[in-house]
């Protein structure tokens, strides 16, 4: 099966699970609410509030929500399909609830009185008269929910559930516009297809045309059965794949693939890469055991997880302290230090390209009130930023947040004056950008380290052994070359990782 078909089926399964759960909740609730105005206000109010939460946030919030069940002894998978389905279910409620309530309340009062008058029980009034007459409105709500849910399922990717969003998120990071387009078109196609099936069933039933509704029902029923059979809540059948996390930028995609392919080559375990996880989602998931492995940076742990400032300037000293803290407080094992450092740094254009004529952050501070700075989603809320502000008294005219994929072009094009860059990014050199010196050491060193969940490490020594061999294997130049291959030469992360591993094994063989 092609990757597109695989992702489309996974996408469909998430959406259908959510729609089935949503319908199972909102139909009875809508019927009850249509009869009790006080309940109607509460129910529709709550559903409306849910709807106002941005989709990405609603899904992300499911992760800590599910993880919190662990405190009452209920271990639920906090990343992957379960939080995605729950978030999507909540999101699907409003159109179905509202249309059920509206559809029932719009039934002609004369018809309702006749239903009582001819001697129907309340249940018969609902089943024989009110529901059939409200059905077109209820189905319209189901169709709205379907289109919304399928569209929003693309946002399941950052919480670790496979969907067509994988193509979109990865495509955005790696500037692969074909992948982005493919993901969008496929998702829209699924939405329209499901919508069409439901409409065909409704029309066929209303106009009593078997040729229309029977095939549509069979297809939809088959898809729902397939969705229900896919493992959303239960554990994965058979030996569990090794789950590797990757944060939402190119380097992480390459490293995720690199780890995965290394495991594939050296062990008989099957790896699975969960892409585009946020820093905190990835760390929490690793601690909770929902992720087995991911690559983190020591400076990030220092500021984000440990909440510390004033880092030791020495890379090894910082790495040692981080390693001890991870082991003692969270049971997280540092498997290997890859060898390269990917630091956050401030970068600007060269003075010859119209950049400010400064070499250090200290010099930049005097000019900053006239300049605009851009950073990725996390930068301005990270401890490093606070440290920069307090150490240098940095205050910019404007702070702009944008996708990491766009930062370098924005700087090169002169739309912003300074960016928070990654030092291993190939685009720094490609665009002739300069990294400003952090002369007072406000930003910590960022050694890339492979982190593993302790239980996983204990249970999978063969995987740990395979990965330990990567210790010190990737220097700054090698990492920069890999990033450049993806960002500037358009190579897929999988291919870049494979090429590096191939080159390494041919190097190693003669020894």
């Amino acid at each position, binding site marked *: 099966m092609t990757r597109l078909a695989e992702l489309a089926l996974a996408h469909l399964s998430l959406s259908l699970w959510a729609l089935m759960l949503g319908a199972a909740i909102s139909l009875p609730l809508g019927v009850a609410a249509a009869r009790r105005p006080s309940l109607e206000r509460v129910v529709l109010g709550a559903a409306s509030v849910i709807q106002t939460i941005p989709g990405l946030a609603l899904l992300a919030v499911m992760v800590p929500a599910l993880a919190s069940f662990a405190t009452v002894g209920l271990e639920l998978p906090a990343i992957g399909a379960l939080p995605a389905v729950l978030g999507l279910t909540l999101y699907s409620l409003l159109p179905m609830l509202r249309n059920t309530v509206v559809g029932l309340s719009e039934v*002609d009062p*004369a*018809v309702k009185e006749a239903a*009582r*008058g*001819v*001697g*129907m*029980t309340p249940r*018969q009034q609902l089943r024989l008269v009110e529901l059939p007459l409200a059905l077109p409105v209820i189905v319209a709500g189901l169709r709205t929910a379907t289109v919304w849910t399928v569209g929003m399922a693309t946002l399941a990717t950052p919480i670790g559930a496979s969907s067509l969003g994988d193509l979109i998120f990865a495509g955005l990071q790696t500037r692969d516009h074909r992948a982005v387009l493919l993901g969008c078109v496929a998702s829209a196609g699924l939405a329209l297809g499901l919508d069409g099936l439901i409409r065909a069933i409704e029309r066929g039933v209303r106009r009593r045309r078997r040729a229309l509704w029977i095939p549509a029902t069979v297809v939809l029923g088959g898809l729902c059965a397939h969705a229900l059979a896919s493992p959303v809540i239960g554990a994965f059948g058979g030996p569990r794949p090794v789950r590797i996390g990757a944060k939402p930028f190119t380097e992480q995609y390459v490293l995720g693939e690199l780890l995965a392919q290394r495991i594939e080559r050296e062990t008989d375990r099957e790896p699975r890469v969960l892409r585009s996880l946020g820093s905190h989602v990835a760390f929490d998931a690793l601690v909770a055991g929902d992720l087995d492995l991911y690559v983190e940076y020591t400076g990030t742990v220092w500021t984000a997880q440990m909440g510390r400032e004033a880092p030791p300037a020495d890379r090894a000293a910082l790495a040692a302290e981080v390693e001890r803290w991870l082991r003692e407080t969270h049971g997280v094992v540092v498997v290997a230090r890859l060898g390269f450092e990917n630091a956050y740094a401030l970068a600007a254009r060269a003075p010859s390209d119209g950049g400010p004529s400064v070499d250090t952050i200290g010099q930049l501070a005097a000019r900053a009130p006239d300049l605009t700075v851009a950073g990725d989603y996390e930068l301005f809320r990270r401890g490093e930023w606070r440290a920069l502000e307090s150490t240098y008294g940095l205050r910019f005219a404007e702070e702009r947040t944008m996708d990491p994929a766009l930062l370098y072009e924005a700087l090169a094009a002169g739309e912003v004056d300074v960016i928070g860059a990654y030092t291993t990014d190939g685009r720094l050199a490609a665009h002739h950008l300069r990294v400003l010196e952090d002369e007072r050491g406000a930003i910590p060193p960022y050694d890339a380290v492979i982190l593993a969940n302790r239980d996983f490490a204990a249970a999978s020594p063969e995987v740990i052994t395979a990965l330990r061999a990567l210790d010190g294997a990737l220097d700054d130049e090698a990492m920069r070359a890999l990033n450049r291959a993806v960002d500037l030469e358009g190579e897929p992360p999988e291919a870049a990782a494979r090429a590096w591993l191939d080159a390494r094994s041919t190097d190693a063989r003669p020894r």
Partner: protein
Amino acid sequence: MSERAPEPTIELSGVTVRFGEVTAVEGVCVAIDEGELLALVGGSGSGKTTTLKTINRLVEPTRGVVRLRGEDVRALVPHVLRRRVGYCFQRIGLFPHMTVAQNVGITPRLLGWDAARVEAHVRERLALVELPPETYADRMPHELSGGQKQRVGVARALAGEPEIVLFDEPFGALDPLTREQLQHATARLRDELGLTGVFVTHDVVEAILLGDRIGVMNEGRLVQVGTARELREAPADDYVARLIDAPNRAAALARGAGP
């Protein structure tokens, strides 16, 4: 009870209905015998519709008792009671998603009759209201004229062998000629089937035509009950006198205004 006491089929005793502060019906007492159709007549807001609805429990009295063949209707399960009572009202309320035949056959089906019996009964009832079943049985309500819809409404009220019938201004929204046709059709049905029940109207001519007796309601009270002749010859008050004379005044006006 095995003795054949002449017990009224419907009996209202001191029925009062209040909606919050408003008194809609005040102390209505009336008895309707088997085979008798009582026409309740009065102005808008006189309480005649509310009084009618206490009989099939679409409205519950605040005080007083309604009895059907001696049984307090409060002791009956509402939907069981309503299957024994034919009900037809001005807004008709045909089920728009059901055919004419399904509309007419609804109460027999709720009563659990088998399909063949329901079908035969429906055809008979449609013929009774002058809608040939072969033409109308499979039509949808939206394909009918106003008069045809109300004929279906009457047929539905008469389906399922109801013990009594309640008509609530069934022809009030129809044009005069259609109304006249339906009035005469209903009069014929009353004579053929010996209908027992209540017919609410604000039209005195309709009340005279269809009612074995006429009850006059004003401001929630049942002012007088009697035959048309009794009301004309001995009206209880000025309101009854003027109401029963209204058709004569209208006829005089129509003659005077004519060419």
